[in-house]
């Protein structure tokens, strides 16, 4: 089965196509989506085992020899991200059954999600820089459909901005690839890494590095390129927001991590210092936003910024602890953001508003929701033994080892702000005088709670079970820190 590493990409794609034939039968669409995602998860888990045993898996499409064809590469980092993407999507899909509404389900909601997963997994797996552009476009076009789905007035307005920003960033991506191709004459990422090592990263390569940071930074939402994110992400319904918040920004983070560990590693004092400064500024911007807003969605969206800053700070340290922490925290953040968005979705469903000032006293009527939110909030802030703790601890350790005392203190301080921002939600929404609630359906509420509970449980397990998960994370960090193992696996030297 040499094609195993492609299955998490092909299977969602196949099911997305099949769903196009069942536009009106919502039931069949739901069942097929769940089957497709579960099968993909099974294959992804097999792939993790395979990568753990046999090392990096590569496949060059169309039987072309390696630097010429499009190579797909599964190292531990990408396969872990692929698996968490699929798991989160599965639970968000189950959550949407009772919350997204049949109107949207009929209008290609599930196919769009599956096409988007195809793009996300493809971008995680590909080993070819132009192919990464293509997979970015696949996931972006699907996300354009998702963000505008339903066609509310506000959605239309925000999606125009979202699409324009992304079209321009795609044009920049093409330009960057053109520059890179004119200098190294190859598109295979392993080959590019090797060629840049041969020529020793002259100034022009660093310029390309900054251009790449610009392109992927727009997708990831780093400072000062996050300006579009709070507005656009708040427009679509909660399940779509959960997918975007948990997955799409992380694709940008993955791309930055990959290029900044494989290509631009010969002038760390320049490229990685810029990355670190931007990461810290992202954290500060996120903290300000998370404290300033009284809107549930906005608070969590600004928390995405903080997490991205923390992860990229870990990456920019380029030492073992920092990188392990970044990988660990990346997966933790995908799980916990998915869970938090689902929980605030339930809170919005119950109260009928996303404004904190109009909530209160929910703990009297919805106690389980309150405790679930509290666990997720503690996990987000990184209170031991929950999952955010280990990642942040390693990133902080990496920062101190690298001698970045100031930056590390910013990271530690940001944890307090994160805790404050989510506890503020808890205090405003769950304490105080109860306000009149929306008439809600108890059954729908239970159906919405189920995936949220499972995701929170998974993130708790991820934190408690660090002992078992850590070997995988350290494998992933090892490949990131040692580009030659990636290059050798692809070029088979």
């Amino acid at each position, binding site marked *: 089965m040499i094609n195993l590493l492609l299955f998490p990409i092909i299977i969602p794609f196949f099911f997305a196509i099949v769903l196009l034939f069942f536009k009106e039968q919502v039931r069949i669409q739901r069942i097929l989506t769940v089957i497709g995602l579960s099968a993909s998860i099974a294959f992804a888990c097999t792939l993790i085992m395979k990568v753990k045993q046999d090392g990096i898996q590569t496949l060059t499409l169309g039987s072309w020899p390696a630097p010429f064809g499009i190579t797909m590469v599964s190292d531990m980092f990408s396969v872990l991200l692929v698996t968490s993407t699929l798991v989160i999507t599965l639970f968000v899909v189950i959550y949407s059954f009772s919350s997204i509404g049949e109107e949207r389900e009929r209008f290609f909601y599930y196919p769009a999600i599956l096409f988007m997963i195809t793009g996300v997994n493809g971008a995680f797996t590909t080993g070819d820089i132009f192919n990464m552009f293509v997979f970015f476009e696949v996931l*972006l076009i699907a996300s354009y459909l998702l963000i505008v789905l339903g066609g509310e007035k506000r959605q*239309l*307005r925000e999606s*125009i901005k979202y699409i324009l920003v992304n*079209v*321009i960033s795609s044009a920049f991506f093409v330009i960057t690839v053109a520059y890179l*191709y004119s200098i190294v004459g190859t598109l295979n990422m392993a080959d590019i890494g090797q060629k840049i090592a041969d020529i020793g990263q002259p100034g022009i390569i660093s310029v390309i590095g900054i251009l790449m940071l610009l392109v992927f930074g727009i997708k990831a939402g780093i400072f000062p390129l996050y300006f579009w994110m709070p507005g656009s992400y708040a427009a679509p319904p909660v399940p779509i927001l959960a997918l975007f918040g948990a997955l799409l920004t992380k694709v940008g983070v993955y791309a930055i991590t990959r290029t900044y560990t494989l290509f631009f590693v010969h002038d760390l004092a320049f490229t990685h210092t810029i990355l670190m400064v931007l990461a810290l500024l992202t954290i500060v911007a996120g903290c300000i936003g998370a404290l300033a807003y009284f809107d549930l969605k906005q608070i969590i969206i600004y928390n995405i910024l903080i997490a991205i800053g923390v992860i990229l700070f870990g990456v920019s340290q380029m030492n073992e602890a920092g990188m392990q922490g970044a990988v660990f925290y990346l997966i933790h953040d995908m799980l916990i953001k998915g869970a938090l968005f689902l929980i605030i979705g339930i809170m919005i469903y119950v109260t009928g508003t996303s404004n904190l000032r109009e909530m209160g006293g929910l703990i009297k009527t919805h106690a389980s929701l309150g405790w679930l939110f509290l666990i997720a909030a503690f996990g987000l802030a990184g209170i031991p033994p929950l999952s955010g703790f280990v990642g942040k601890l390693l990133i902080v350790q990496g920062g101190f080892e690298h001698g970045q005392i100031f930056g590390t203190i910013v990271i530690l301080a940001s944890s307090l702000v994160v805790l404050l921002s989510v506890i503020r939600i808890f205090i405003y929404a769950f304490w105080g005088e109860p306000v009149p609630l929306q008439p809600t359906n108890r059954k729908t509420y239970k159906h919405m709670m189920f995936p949220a509970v499972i995701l929170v449980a998974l993130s708790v397990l991820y934190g408690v079970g660090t002992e078992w998960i850590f070997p995988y994370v350290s494998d992933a960090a090892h490949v990131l820190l040692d580009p030659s193992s990636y290059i050798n696996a692809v070029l088979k030297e």
Partner: protein
Amino acid sequence: MELLMAIVAGILFTAAIYLILSRSLIKVILGTGLLSHGAHLFILTMGGLGGSAPPVLLDGVTEFVDPLPQALILTAIVISFGVTAFILVLAYRTYAVHKTDDLNSMKGNDEHD
């Protein structure tokens, strides 16, 4: 020749940026179209314009053109075709709902809904 092409691509970018900064939505969309055209031309230039014969097909050709940038451009053109079509449909729907194509009046946040 490369210099000329680079200048042409530059002119396309200039026009694109001018259009993107305007207020009318349809002009902005035309601007993104020009931007991607400029980017495509730029790939062609960056790949090098030397050689005129097609590669692979004929034996004994020494001055052949690099096929890879052309493959990239073809892919990028198809993608920008799809995105432009989508964004035009979206602009039309937005115009129908908002009754304006002035981006200035599409500013705003929750309070303005």
